[in-house]
């Protein structure tokens, strides 16, 4: 295990001060679930590890006055999985957490740490993009919101600047005529990271049954999550039912997309299965959007 100086700031300002002072010598850490694996292997060798665990009030799960969901960066996966607000109003997030890692990992791992790690083979990004969510970043220069569609930049790389700290996830209220679903495809149920993780979001006009808006986000297939814009466009303006969805996706192929190889799944397999998972996720989202 590498050596490092362990800093435990009690406030965001103090943490941001350390980041400014030690610059690229420092690395932020929440529970360390993902980071410790890389530190043990000597993959990263930060001189200073800044733990955020002593900062209070960063693990909330609440809604604001407009019913948007706010999740503190230190909320654990398990807290999100079990949250009543999320299960009632943002179910796709709970569904995503349900099969993420094991109970042990979900008990300790934080949503903020998971996202900032920037590993492409994780579940949250696709759902966050499909829900049009944003990341609130704090630095001594001020705060800004980064849409999750622009947050992931590559392997272990995010849009956060060196001096920024992710503090909150902001997820817009889901209208009553909308539905979202996350389906992951992997080896087993437990523990495994996704080969393919598809989140589908649909808004359906209640009077006509026509799809008025759609976002489909694909996780784990490439170095960053991507939107399947062509699939979204095929759905918008159509009156959807399961048969129509089958027809729409009959010959659908993700032609221009880069599918990366990972140790458990060849890229060809990802390419073949992704359209199937998209179809399933869209059907589930439709079912949810159609429910009163």
């Amino acid at each position, binding site marked *: 295990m590498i050596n490092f*100086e*362990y800093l435990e700031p009690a406030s965001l300002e103090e943490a941001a001060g350390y980041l400014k002072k030690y610059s690229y010598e420092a690395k932020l850490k929440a*529970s*360390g679930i993902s980071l410790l694996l890389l530190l*043990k292997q000597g993959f990263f060798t930060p001189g200073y590890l800044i733990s955020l665990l002593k900062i209070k009030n960063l693990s909330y799960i609440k809604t604001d006055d407009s019913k948007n969901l706010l999740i503190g960066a230190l909320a654990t996966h398990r807290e999100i999985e079990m949250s009543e607000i999320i299960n009632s109003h943002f179910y796709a997030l709970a569904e995503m957490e349900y099969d993420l890692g094991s109970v*042990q990992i979900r008990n300790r791992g934080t949503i903020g740490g998971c996202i900032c790690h920037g590993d492409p083979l994780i579940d949250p990004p696709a759902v966050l993009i499909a829900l049009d969510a944003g990341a609130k970043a704090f630095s001594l220069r001020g705060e800004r919101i980064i849409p999750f569609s622009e947050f992931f930049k590559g392997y272990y790389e995010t849009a956060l600047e060196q001096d920024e700290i992710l503090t909150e996830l902001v997820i817009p209220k889901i209208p009553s005529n909308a539905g979202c679903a996350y389906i992951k495809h992997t080896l087993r149920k437990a523990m495994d990271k996704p080969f393919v993780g598809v989140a589908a979001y649909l808004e359906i006009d209640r009077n006509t049954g026509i799809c008025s808006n759609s976002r489909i986000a694909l996780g784990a297939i490439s170095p960053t999550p991507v939107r399947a814009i062509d699939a979204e466009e095929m759905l918008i303006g159509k009156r959807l039912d399961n048969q129509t969805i089958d027809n729409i996706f009959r010959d659908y192929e993700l032609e221009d997309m880069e599918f990366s190889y990972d140790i458990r799944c060849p890229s060809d397999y990802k390419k073949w299965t992704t359209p199937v998972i998209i179809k399933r996720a869209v059907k589930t989202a439709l079912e949810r959007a159609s429910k009163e």
Partner: protein
Amino acid sequence: MAKRKIKLDINNNIYELEIEPNRILADLLREELGLTGTKKSCDIGVCGSCTVLLDGKAITSCITLAVDCVNKKILTIEGVANGDKLDRIQEAFVDRGAVQCGFCTPGMVLSAKALLCENPNPSEVEIRRAIAGNLCRCTGYSKIVEAIKSASG
């Protein structure tokens, strides 16, 4: 790297320690405190053999820094029995033949304990999900699930 003085509450005993901040909880328990009931196998948070309870919740101690456990209650397998009297989960494991080589057993028992504290009457699916992060390469899990079921209620 400067050592720091910390106090850890392990099995209701307060340990006053001087450790490096990069000390991993599983290593500290095994190498410095002699609590070798906590096993290490994969060392990357996948197999669950290093499971301990932190404030009642199952965690993998192989990817946890010991300094992050200050002001929290740690329960290891050594703290589960009451003196010579086994916990009912441990008894059930013995009675149902849920132990073969035994390497996964401490982690299994602790995952089961966390589950039963939270949910005293779990379904089979809930039991299987609670131990999904604990690998056993001997039993095929049936006896373990049976044992946890029989210790519930």
